[in-house]
């Protein structure tokens, strides 16, 4: 085909921008924005995905555009790594945009046209971040992405809490951006040439390479939400409208992973084993922290946001493992770990956006975000409920859906670590595998809580009976994402053969070289060693279910009687007697008590209206952030002395500065 991938991607990004501009021109027209522009955006997303999937197997292409500052043109490059993440962006945004077409309402903060602008600028900037090939273009796009998402987060800007969340997000995004900028400064190696091509050509001494890596970890980690830079995530995700939360969680966090992979494997060649161990340790801490906190949340979007932290933790664990293997020249294991990492990026993009969109539908149907006031929605919203079940099972890492595949690959990478040369490291690996398994099992707990409390049981509030199911646009979006979860779970071999195009250039080995499976059987090393065939498992479960059902029907009459719930004969049953979100999280609060900073408010036995309250907070907030904030405040108090509020004083400052500068250059 004569279609050239890179220009098409640039054109498609421009098309997204154009949609945004059209939206801005007709800012008040909901029909145009919702029924034309967003579906068009979805189509563009599909096109991006198609181009990216074509480009993933082809050699890198480059181009230079004379945009920006006179002497600093934008360099763009599309290689397999960019293409892979572009494919995630395209595929997921297609579903999210379709959903958004049905989701937009009048009178929710920012007018629809403006939202359309931010939304499409956000999409376009993410696409351009992924193809940027010099630090300048990268930073411009990165900042555009941060700003447009900030405006999206604060689209309900009348609520003070949301403004606060947006502020926190912007703050940490900028700390991260600063760190990335410094990282590029280190990477260019004193040549003053900020193209990635030049950085690739540099071979930095280990000390500077380490500095560069640490800066990248900090900078991209702030965007991805690794510990302890995660605090913005549970604030910003719930504040944003659901399609935006979905995009942020599914794609924006992945751009940070992209950056990390780009810097570590593509731009920095010298790799030190302890980089990997550091990332591994941080990843484990992040995963455990995220899942434990998500188990105690009582706001459904916050719960999902913490679950995103957990999944980023898994991804960083895989990344760390890859770096360690790579540093020890164990290339096939590095390929395995990297495949697990990339696969999990893809999976997380799918199921997390699915669940965020489902919460969006619930939110619109019930006007309620607190888990404690939902319940029983499966009867009123069957579409959303059943599709969300797919997402919940997938994120819980259950076979035969997609979450399980990446967990399986990751555990395999852990398991077949044959004698790393370092004694301590060798023993750390099993412990790390155990922690991964624990976090994965906990995510099952979280998802039962999430799903059970929202969709199952009896409605906890009167007005939930008036809830309505999602509209057709929303259903299409949800079905698209749920289908992705199933497909990715069932045909891992085909997906991995795509991912192989990415792992090859990055770690110099692909799984295809060692794999022995067939199209049906995933066997990354040897069939003897480990194999998994999700399609057969799925068929096994489905066939067994139907066989049992059929057999039971044959031998048995099948009569069913409906009656009120028995509940061990308890006479009084009200919906309020079901477990609340707090109640369901209680075992986790109990078992992992040291993780939390809890304040409890217990009623006394004589209270007329007894009230139990528990506030669960993050230790890190009190240990890391508040001291820094206090310190900054103290510092600014000193600087504030300079603020006199009189023009003449300020003029004096300028005057003195001018004099000093004149003396200095003399």
């Amino acid at each position, binding site marked *: 085909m004569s279609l050239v991938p890179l220009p098409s991607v640039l054109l498609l990004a421009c098309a997204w921008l154009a949609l945004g501009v059209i939206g801005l021109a007709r800012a008040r027209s909901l029909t145009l924005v919702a029924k034309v522009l967003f579906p068009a955006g979805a189509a563009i997303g599909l096109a991006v995905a198609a181009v990216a999937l074509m480009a993933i197997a082809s050699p890198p292409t480059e181009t230079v555009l004379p945009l920006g500052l006179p002497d600093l043109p934008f360099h763009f490059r599309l290689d397999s790594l960019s293409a892979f993440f572009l494919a995630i962006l395209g595929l997921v945004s297609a579903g999210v945009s379709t959903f958004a077409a049905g989701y937009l309402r009048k009178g929710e903060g920012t007018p629809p046209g403006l939202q359309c602008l931010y939304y499409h600028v956000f999409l376009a900037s993410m696409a351009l971040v992924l193809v940027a090939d010099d630090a300048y273009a990268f930073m411009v796009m990165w900042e555009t992405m941060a700003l447009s998402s900030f405006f999206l987060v604060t689209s309900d800007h009348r609520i003070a809490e949301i403004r606060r969340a947006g502020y926190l997000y912007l703050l940490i995004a900028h700390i991260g951006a600063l760190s990335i900028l410094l990282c590029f400064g280190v990477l260019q190696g004193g040549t003053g040439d900020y193209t990635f091509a030049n950085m690739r050509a540099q071979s930095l001494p280990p000390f500077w390479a380490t500095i560069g890596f640490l800066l990248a970890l900090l900078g991209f980690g702030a965007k991805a939400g690794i510990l302890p830079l995660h605090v913005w995530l549970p604030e910003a995700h719930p504040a944003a409208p659901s399609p935006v939360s979905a995009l942020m969680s599914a794609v924006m966090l992945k751009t940070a992973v992209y950056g990390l992979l780009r810097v570590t494997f593509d731009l920095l060649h010298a790799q030190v084993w302890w980089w990997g161990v550091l990332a591994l340790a941080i990843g484990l801490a992040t995963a455990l922290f995220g899942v434990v906190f998500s188990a105690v949340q009582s706001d459904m979007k916050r719960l999902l946001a913490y679950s995103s932290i957990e999944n980023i933790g898994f991804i960083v664990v895989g990344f760390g493992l890859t770096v360690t293997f790579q540093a020890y020249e164990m290339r096939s294991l590095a390929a395995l770990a990297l495949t697990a990492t990339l696969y999990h990026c893809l999976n997380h993009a799918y199921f997390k956006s699915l669940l965020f969109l489902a919460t969006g539908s619930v939110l619109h149907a019930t006007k309620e975000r607190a888990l404690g006031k939902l319940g029983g929605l499966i009867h009123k919203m069957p579409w959303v409920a059943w599709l969300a079940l797919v997402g919940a099972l997938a994120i819980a890492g259950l076979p035969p859906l997609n979450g399980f595949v990446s967990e399986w690959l990751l555990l395999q990478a852990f398991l077949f670590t044959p004698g790393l040369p370092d*004694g*301590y490291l060798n*023993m*750390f690996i099993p*412990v790390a595998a155990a922690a991964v398994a624990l976090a994965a099992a906990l995510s099952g707990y979280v998802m039962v809580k999430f799903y059970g409390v929202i969709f199952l049981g009896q409605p906890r509030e009167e007005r939930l009976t008036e809830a309505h199911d999602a509209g057709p646009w929303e259903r299409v979006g949800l079905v698209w994402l749920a289908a992705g979860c199933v497909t990715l779970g069932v045909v891992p071999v085909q997906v991995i053969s795509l991912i192989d195009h990415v792992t090859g250039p990055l770690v110099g080995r692909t799984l295809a070289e060692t794999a022995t499976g067939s199209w049906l059987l995933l066997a990354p090393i040897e069939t003897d060693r480990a194999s998994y065939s999700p399609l057969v498992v799925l068929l096994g479960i489905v066939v067994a279910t139907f066989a049992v059902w059929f057999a039971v029907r044959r031998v048995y009459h099948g009569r069913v009687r409906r009656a009120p719930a028995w509940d061990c004969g308890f006479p009084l049953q009200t919906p309020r007697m079901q477990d609340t979100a707090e109640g369901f999280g209680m075992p986790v609060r109990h078992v992992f008590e040291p993780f939390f900073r809890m304040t409890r408010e217990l009623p006394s036995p004589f209270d007329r209206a007894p009230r139990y309250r528990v506030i669960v907070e993050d230790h890190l907030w009190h240990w890391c952030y508040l001291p820094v904030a206090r310190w900054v405040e103290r510092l600014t108090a000193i600087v504030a002395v300079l603020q006199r509020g009189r023009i003449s004083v300020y003029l004096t400052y300028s005057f003195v500065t001018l004099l000093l500068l004149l003396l200095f250059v003399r």
Partner: protein
Amino acid sequence: MITAAFANQIINLFAAVMLLLAFAMLAQRRVLSLIDLFAMQGLVLTLSTGFVAYTTGQTHLWFSAGITFALKVVLLPWILYRLIRQLDVKWDVEGLINIPTTMLIGIVLVILSFNVALPISQIAGTITKGTLGIALASVLLAFLMMITRSKAVPQVIGFLAMENGLFFAATAATYGMPMVVELGIALDVLVGVVILGVFFFQIRERFDSLDIRHLEKLKEE
């Protein structure tokens, strides 16, 4: 005759059981079960000493196996049982740290002791790689148990378990200490327990409890 490789495997198995018992003691709340576990550890020690005696043909190890059995499987548990009956302290003891956390620290200790012991066992050559590490780990775990318990009896058991670890290191790693040293240590342990037993009565008379947190009051204000 037993091959060297097979002997190594058996010694490794004993070592693993020692470690398992050390962890079991760490996880055990009940004082009486703690004594049982201690006696079992003594039994394992006896068996492993006997096994080393059999494979190396060193007669004095037979004696030390006998002493171990008499002292650690019969005499000390009996004394401890009697003490507990007389003091009436057989209820559960809550640790200062919860059990899984204690075990997590224990795992870290195991990793640490293996890496510490690695160079030594490479020099020694007589033994399998991990035995010394496990012996050291048992000592450290017993120490940890002493730290995390707030009652006097479990602490004494921890002290005795520490000696078990040392003894295991001596037999499994270096095929035993000189007889005189061994007898001396055995006597020390016995005397130690007797003195501590007297101590218990003193503590209880003073505070009406064996909770050693009361001893904090004794410091100068």
